[in-house]
């Protein structure tokens, strides 16, 4: 494929908005997503034969509008799903891996825009790798794509507005969660909350109303202390610690955990031969409305960079409003306190991929990040440290007296490929002719 194509990774609202603006400017775009369908997380579509979840009309209309524009640009934008972006190498070659088992695709795009959304932060908890424990986002993905809630009782825990949102969606799908545990106590800053834009407040009222009608208790300041395999009635035994310090157990089949969001930008680096942009939640987690604006903004910037159109940042004021709203939400839902390795249960798994525990890390004694990786195998599995990297970094620097603060190298360093790919797929792929770079 020739040099005149812009590769946009992620067909959520940010990526689609960027692609549309680029096509408006006459630019050819290859838009890929590793999911089976376009939509990203917020606008995730149901499978072709699944029941569609009811959504607010304005949400449906925004999505339909973006897709109508995309289809109108059919001659300029090529959308390919079930295709994974494996990164860009130092020569400016991008690798796309086909998840349906076809050969991989190597190309030299004119520019890359990464619009891969956000990753959920999930702190380690004792028993946190027991099957049935997943992220709240995973539950929402299953719900939106299959049109039905997983069977059996569900508990949601962690912190952030997503817990209420998904709780309400589960309730509307006929399976309200047994309870929601949130370490935050947003009611203490209710007056700050009133500074949120009306649309945010209306959404919150809608979720709360749905949860109250469904009889879902919300325990503020409460946390999951541990998870154990259940009995014949329930898959999981969840130990809950309430704000007053009381402990009790509940049985459930699924536990959704969510401790916040961060940009899903692992391995996104600009190479000397190829400029790479980020947009949407992948650049800054500001939500779906801001992601649509930011996609247009970055799309316009890239069109300008490639010589088609003049960039002026008319999106900045609206994006700034969403940034202010996120700052208020952060007041209501502050970050959880850092993971405390000293007080942690020794069997708690820190690194899922390599099955490494708190005890394994302690056994290394004084250690640097590099030693933790090379000797301890922490953050060395196929997820490349996406889920344990932050906890590991915090644990290594936790105690300045024990020498662990001498963390010279970062815990996470990006390595190509940025996601697992089949060796055969890349062996069989054709390397693009370097001369095509001069087209």
């Amino acid at each position, binding site marked *: 494929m020739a040099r005149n194509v812009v590769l946009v990774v992620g067909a959520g609202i940010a990526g689609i908005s960027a692609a549309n603006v680029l096509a408006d400017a006459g630019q050819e775009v290859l838009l890929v997503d*590793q*999911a*089976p*369908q376009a939509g990203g*997380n917020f606008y995730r579509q149901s*499978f*072709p*034969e*699944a029941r569609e979840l009811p959504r607010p009309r304005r949400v449906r209309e925004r999505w339909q509008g973006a897709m109508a524009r995309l289809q109108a640009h059919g001659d300029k934008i090529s959308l390919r799903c*079930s295709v*994974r972006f494996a990164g860009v190498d130092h020569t400016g070659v991008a690798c796309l891996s086909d*998840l*349906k*088992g076809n050969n991989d695709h190597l190309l030299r795009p004119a520019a890359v825009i990464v619009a891969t959304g956000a*990753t*959920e932060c999930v702190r380690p908890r004792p028993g946190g*790798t*027991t*099957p*049935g*424990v*997943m*992220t709240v*986002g*995973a*539950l929402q*993905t*299953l719900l939106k*794509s*299959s049109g*039905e809630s*997983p*069977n059996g009782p569900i508990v949601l825990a962690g912190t952030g507005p997503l817990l209420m949102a998904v709780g309400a969606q589960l309730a509307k799908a006929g399976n309200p969660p047994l309870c929601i545990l949130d370490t935050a106590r947003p009611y203490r800053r209710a007056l700050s909350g009133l500074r949120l834009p009306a649309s945010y407040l209306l959404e919150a009222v809608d979720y709360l109303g749905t949860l109250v009608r469904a009889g879902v208790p919300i325990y503020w300041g409460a946390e999951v202390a541990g998870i154990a395999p259940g009995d014949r009635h329930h*898959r999981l035994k969840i130990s809950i610690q309430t704000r007053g310090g009381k402990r009790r157990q509940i049985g459930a*089949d699924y536990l959704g955990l969510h401790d916040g969001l961060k940009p*899903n930008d692992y391995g996104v680096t600009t190479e000397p031969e190829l400029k790479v942009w980020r947009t949407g939640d992948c650049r800054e987690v500001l939500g779906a409305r801001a992601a649509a604006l930011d996609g247009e903004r970055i799309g316009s910037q890239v069109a300008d960079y490639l010589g088609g159109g003049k960039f002026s940042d008319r999106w900045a004021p609206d994006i700034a409003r969403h940034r202010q709203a996120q700052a208020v939400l952060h007041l209501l839902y502050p970050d959880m306190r850092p993971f405390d390795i000293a007080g942690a249960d020794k069997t708690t*798994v820190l690194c*899922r*991929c*390599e*099955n490494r525990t708190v005890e394994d890390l302690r056994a290394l004694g004084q250690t640097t990040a590099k030693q933790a990786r090379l000797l301890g195998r922490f953050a060395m*599995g*196929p*997820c490349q440290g*996406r*889920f344990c990297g932050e906890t590991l970094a915090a644990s290594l620097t936790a105690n300045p007296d024990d020498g662990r603060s001498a963390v010279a190298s970062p815990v996470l360093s990006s390595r190509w490929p940025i*996601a*697992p790919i*089949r*060796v*055969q*797929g890349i062996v069989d792929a054709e390397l693009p002719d370097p001369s095509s770079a001069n087209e």
Partner: protein
Amino acid sequence: MSGVIHWHGKALPFRKGETVATVLLRAGVVDFGASATGQRCSIFCGIGQCQSCLVEVKSRGVAEACLLICEEGMHLSSVGEYPLAESGTHGS
């Protein structure tokens, strides 16, 4: 329902375009077996970032259940279940 996939030989119906993850969960299969490091494989992030939901596709190799679209007659198992010679990526 538009076809069946086979999980450890057991036929499970699927709807067109559905992922292996939703079919397995609907059938009550939450534990997909042990990974190479001994950790249980199961749905965790649900969007192809964590590699926790790996399953083995006969004559194709490992894949993430959350991204894998069901195909008629697909044979699936826990990772490492099919002998290597059988699960070469070329399907021979």
